[in-house]
C-alpha cells in the first residue's frame, strides 16, 4: 500500500497562540518500504506517526492511500516506546488484542497468537502478565501483537529506545526477520541515526520545529540484512553525513 502525505501541517496550542510543529511536509511511503524518520526532538516525528495512524488529524494538508480499494480504510497500527501492553491482560490476550478487535473468534485468534509467541520465543510466557516480563520481552510481546494483526502499514515510534544496547540489537534483527517477506510498509521513527540506517530502506531527515523534510537518503545496504555484524562501509559513511545535517539543529540557540 502506498501512503502519500501532502502539505501536512500540525499546530500545537501554545501559550501565545498556536505553535507550528510540522509545516508543509510532503512525503511518500512506497508499498513494502521500510522508511525511517529521523530528526531532532520536537520536530513532530511522533505526531506524524499519530496522524498516519489516524489517531490525530493534521491541521493542514492531507494523507492519502492512492490505489487502496479495500472495503475499509487500510489498517495502520502503531508500536510504542512504552510497549502499551494492557497490564491486566495475559501476554496471550495482549498479543491477540488486534485480532479480537477485528472480531476473530477466540480459538482462532489464540492459535495465531500462540504461533507468533513461539516464533518470538515467548511461548513459555503466554499466561504471564506484562509486569512479569523483562523490558526486552515486553517489547517482543508488543511486536507480536503488532505483526499478528497483519496491518497494511506498521508505524513504530522508537520502540527499542528504552532497551539496553544488546537487547536492542537482538530485537532489531527480530523486527527485520518478522517484517521481511510480509510486503507491508513500515514507518519507523527514531532519533538514533545508526538504528535508522541498519533497519531502513530509506531515511528521511526532518528539520527542527517546524518539521520539514531536509534530506531523503536511500540506504545502500542489501537485504536480507544481518545487523549483528559490522555494516557495509558506505552505510557507516552515511552516518556522519546525517550527523552533519542534524548537529546544527541540536545546538542550543545562542542567548
Amino acid at each position: 500500500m502506498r501512503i502519500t502525505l501532502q502539505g501536512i501541517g500540525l499546530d500545537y496550542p501554545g501559550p501565545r497562540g498556536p505553535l507550528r510543529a510540522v509545516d508543509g511536509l510532503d512525503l511518500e511511503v512506497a508499498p513494502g518500504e521500510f522508511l525511517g524518520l529521523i530528526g531532532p526532538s520536537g520536530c513532530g516525528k511522533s505526531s506524524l506517526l499519530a496522524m498516519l495512524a489516524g489517531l490525530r488529524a493534521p491541521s493542514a494538508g492531507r494523507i492519502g492511500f492512492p490505489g487502496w480499494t479495500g472495503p475499509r480504510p487500510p489498517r495502520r497500527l502503531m508500536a510504542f516506546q512504552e510497549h502499551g501492553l494492557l497490564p491486566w491482560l495475559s501476554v496471550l490476550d495482549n498479543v491477540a488484542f488486534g485480532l479480537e478487535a477485528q472480531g476473530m473468534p477466540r480459538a482462532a485468534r489464540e492459535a495465531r497468537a500462540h504461533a507468533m509467541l513461539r516464533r518470538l520465543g515467548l511461548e513459555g510466557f503466554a499466561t504471564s502478565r506484562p509486569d512479569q516480563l523483562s523490558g526486552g520481552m515486553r517489547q517482543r510481546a508488543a511486536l507480536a501483537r503488532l505483526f499478528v494483526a497483519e496491518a497494511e502499514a506498521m508505524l513504530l515510534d522508537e520502540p527499542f529506545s528504552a532497551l539496553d544496547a544488546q537487547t536492542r540489537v537482538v530485537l532489531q534483527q527480530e523486527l527485520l526477520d518478522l517484517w521481511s517477506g510480509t510486503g507491508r510498509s513500515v514507518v519507523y521513527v527514531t532519533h538514533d541515526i545508526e538504528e535508522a540506517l541498519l533497519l531502513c530502506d530509506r531515511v528521511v531527515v526532518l528539520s527542527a520545529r517546524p518539521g520539514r523534510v531536509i534530506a531523503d537518503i536511500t540506504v545502500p545496504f542489501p537485504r536480507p540484512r544481518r545487523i549483528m555484524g559490522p555494516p557495509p562501509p558506505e552505510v557507516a559513511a552515511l552516518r556522519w553525513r546525517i550527523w552533519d545535517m542534524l548537529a546544527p539543529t541540536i545546538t542550543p540557540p545562542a542567548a
Partner: protein
Amino acid sequence: MAHLLALLLAAAAWEAAARAGWVAMLLFPPPTIILAWLVESLRNGEMAESLMASGQRLVLGFGLGAGLGTLAGLAMGLAPRLHRALDPVIAALHPMPKVALLPLFLVLFGFSEKARMVPVALVAFFPAAIAGAVAVRAIDPLLWNVARNYGAPPLMVLRRLVLPGAWPVLRAGLRLSLNAAIVVLISVEMLSGNDGLGAAVWQSWQTMRVEQLYGTLLVLAMLGLVFNRCLGR
C-alpha cells in the same frame, strides 16, 4: 497472631479495671459480661434476627446506591461533558446529611423498609460515583490510544480496558461507600427502627444495658470486616 494477642491483653486489662472498680461498671462493663450477653443473644436468636434485618437493608441499600453510583461514575469518566454537568451537583449533594432527611422519606414512603433504605442507598451512591469518574480518567492515555488504534469496538473497550483499568480505584470507592452505608444504616435504625442492629443499640441505651451496646458493636465490626474483605484489601 500479634494483633490477637494485643486484643486479648487489652480485654484482660479492661476486665481487671472493671472488676477492681477503677472504671464505672455501668458504662464499661467487663468483657466477660459483654461476651455472656453476646452468647445468650446468639443462642436465643435475638442477634440473628437483628443481623438479618440489618444485613438485608445493607445489601439492598448499598447494592442499589453503589451500583447506580458506579454506573454514574463510569459514565462521567467516559463522557467529560457529563462529568462537567454532574460534578457540581454531586459536590453539593454529597455533604448533605442524609439522615436529616429521614423524616421526609418516612412521610414520602411511609414507615416502610423503603424509607429506611433510601438514605443508605443515597450515602452509598456518592463515593462510588466520585471514585468511578476518577478511576476511568486515571487509565493510562497510551492504552486508550492502543485500543483506538487497533479499532477495538465499544464493548471490547469496556471489557478489556475500562472495567479492569478502573477497578483498583473503583474498589477503594466501593469500600468507602460500604462503610458510609453501614454508619447511616445504624443511624436510621436507631432513629426509626424496631429491629436491626441500630435498634438494638438504641434499646441498650434506653434500658441501660450497656453490655448489649458493646456486644452489638462487636457484631457490627465483624460484619464490616466480612463485607470489606469481599471488596479486597
